[in-house]
């Protein structure tokens, strides 16, 4: 990872069309401004992390595994019920 020190008001250029400027530093937060062509997607990294978690969450899990999942969560056991009741 390239590490560069910048002060408020200073910026870095990435490639042809992207400029990242440090606008303000306050406490433990940095406000940055990004100028980029419209076709460049800019995301907070939390969205990508969430996308990865969602892909993991969507992976197949057989119904029988749900019971063991709940067992691991140490929920109190429920009595047998007829399946398929849509709430």
């Amino acid at each position: 990872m390239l590490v560069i020190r910048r002060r408020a008001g200073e910026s870095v250029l990435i490639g042809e069309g992207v400029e990242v400027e440090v606008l303000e530093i306050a406490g433990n937060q940095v406000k940055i401004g990004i100028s980029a062509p419209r076709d460049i997607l800019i995301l907070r990294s939390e969205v990508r992390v969430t996308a990865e978690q969602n892909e993991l969450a969507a992976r197949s899990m057989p119904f029988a595994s749900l019971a063991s999942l709940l067992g691991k969560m140490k929920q109190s056991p429920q009595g047998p019920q007829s399946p398929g009741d849509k709430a």
Partner: protein
Amino acid sequence: MSEIDTKYFGRITLDAGSVIEFPQGLPAFEWERAFLAIEHPRTAPLVMLQSVLTPELCFLAIPVADVDPEYELRVCTEDRVALGLDETSDLPTGPDLAVLALVAVRADQQITVNLMSPVVVNRANRRAVQSVRWDGEYSHEYSITGLPARSSVLGQSCW
């Protein structure tokens, strides 16, 4: 009324009034706009979010309050608009909003929930968003393996 195939419950009748709409989909699943929330007594307090479009897509979710009763919900302006909520006033409390965390099972069999990005459902208009937090307050892989038993807030079905 039509029927859809589901991952865990076979073919079920779809009541249009019970569909939850995600206007923006979810990250990595942006095209998935409609889900059913299904609860089953054997799997309480889990809520299954079954895609209406894709039978094999069914997220497992758990009410955030069952994981962390102290959880402090924060929803950004964009997401409030998507939910049809007032941009500035306090978030509705109680049964008006359902706040769910998606469950993932990692390769090492640890069960985690994403408290960083709760699924927030406005029960009044059945709109939902996965609201990604930027404040770093909560983990995206909070382990619930061995979570002590807690009484479910979803004692009776409210979908």
